[in-house]
């Protein structure tokens, strides 16, 4: 355990050192992530200046919905950057190198790449949005609500981590998975910024049962906000986020273990 923590420390030091070789870029990096992620929010802000509400959700409620997405991602990216970038790791041959080192493969993938700047950019934005909106959406922050919130965050991180792990595993079979990741993660995440009730039934089903982003932010937000459009979904969904998170992560991990045997290495 101590050895693992020491190793994580050394990896982190190496990452920091590498990044600060390019000083201007390192400083700009967090800012860039912050701005990039603000794009969707700026767009929603301008849009709601014109249209007031989106299917009954006002701007503060929208910001609260967004904040769940960013807080979970900020935590997620500290641990799962390596899975996000795994196709590059395979293509460059770095995964071969991981196999040749006497450390766990997932351990190396995770800690060789932790993206601290993205974490600060996303997490910072999430916290900012939470602070801006949490007091204005009519939620009473009772201990029960706070505990619910923390479990929802943990579940949301695991759900997205499982998606990353699943997509990373696909790289063992496919040479190039950038677009798959784009559709199943990044685009799904773009949908997730909005109340899923505005979308076609098929997309709603996708967001609940296929790439279950609805459990990352929509249902947890609904638990706290109770907007009218919740009537369309079973009440139980408000409580499932942690279960979905753990279940999906275990499945993805199983898929990863089974797939390693089929690893082909690059350059053959």
């Amino acid at each position, binding site marked *: 355990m101590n050895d693992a923590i020491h190793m994580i420390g050394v990896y982190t030091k190496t990452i920091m050192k590498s990044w600060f070789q390019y000083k201007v870029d390192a400083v700009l990096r967090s800012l860039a992530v912050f701005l990039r992620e603000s794009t969707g929010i700026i767009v929603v802000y301008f849009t709601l200046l014109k249209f007031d509400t989106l299917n009954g959700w006002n701007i503060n409620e929208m910001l609260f919905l967004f904040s769940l997405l960013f807080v979970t991602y900020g935590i997620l990216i500290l641990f799962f950057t390596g899975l996000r970038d795994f196709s590059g790791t395979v293509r460059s041959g770095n995964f071969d190198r991981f196999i040749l080192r006497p450390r766990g493969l997932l351990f190396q993938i995770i800690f060789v790449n932790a993206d601290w700047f993205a974490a600060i950019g996303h997490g910072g934005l999430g916290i900012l949005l939470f602070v801006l909106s949490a007091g204005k959406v009519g939620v009473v922050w009772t201990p029960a609500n706070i505990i619910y919130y923390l479990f929802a965050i943990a579940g949301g991180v695991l759900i997205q981590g499982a998606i990353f792990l699943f997509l990373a595993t696909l790289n063992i079979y496919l040479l190039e998975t950038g677009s*798959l990741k784009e*559709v199943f993660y990044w685009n799904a995440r773009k949908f997730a910024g909005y109340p899923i009730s505005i*979308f076609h039934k098929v997309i709603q089903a996708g967001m609940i049962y296929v790439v279950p982003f609805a459990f990352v932010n929509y249902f947890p937000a609904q638990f706290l906000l109770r907007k009218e459009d919740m009537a369309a979904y079973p009440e139980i969904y408000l409580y499932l986020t942690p279960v979905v998170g753990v279940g999906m992560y275990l499945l993805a991990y199983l898929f990863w273990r089974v797939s390693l045997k089929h690893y082909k290495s690059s350059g053959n």
Partner: protein
Amino acid sequence: MLKPYLAFAKKNFLNRSAYRFNHFIGIVNTLLRIFIFWCIYDALYGSRTEVDGITMAMVTTNFVLSIGMDAMFSIDDYYLSGRISNGSIANELLLPISFKGRMLFENLGNSMFQLVFHFVPALIVAALTVGFLPPVSLPMFLLFLISTILGYGVLWTISFAMQMFAFWLINVWSMVTIKNVFINVLSGSMIPLWFMPEWLKPVLDVLPFSSIYFTPVQIYLGQLTYGEIAYKCGIQGFWIVVIWLFGNLLWSRGKKKLVVQGG
């Protein structure tokens, strides 16, 4: 004269087909982006037929065209920085062809591929699902094509100038990302510029971003008179020249820096 450059364009065109699966998913990706915005505006419009004189069909057309163009242009923002960080720039500068010309034509090869195998299929699917308006007239359609090419020019020169900072920074990911934030918010591909707050509209008019996608879209929808079209296309041309000159200034300084470093 052009032959080697066309060869580069062709090479890139052909290379694109290697990742077949990736490509199909890329089209799905473009369609999803269009679809999300369509859903959002469908919910926003509700039972209204128009807002500020803008119909839902016009909004849809705006998204189909600008998101489609974005996918088609497919600019490689890391063309130069990749070559600087791996050192191959030194050799490529020795070749008896213009590096900048090669950069443009390799991208054009990509864009042609995207036009045929991405933009057109996406357009057909969009027409069958969310639907979009036909061009108002043939002359307007031709002017739309010209303006689209100019829009590509503006986007390419912005990327070109931005990439030159790689001579100093090497890693330009952050700059590129920030650039894209401006393009996404201010070009009309995520929020139709009609719906921007009134105080922001004069600012948008003096920035180059609205001339990338929004000007062609306005021409396509017949929102501009011939006089306005001439003016707007003039603005596009103005930006291409100004940003190109700026990029070139950075290029010649950056190249010197490279020589001083010893490549």
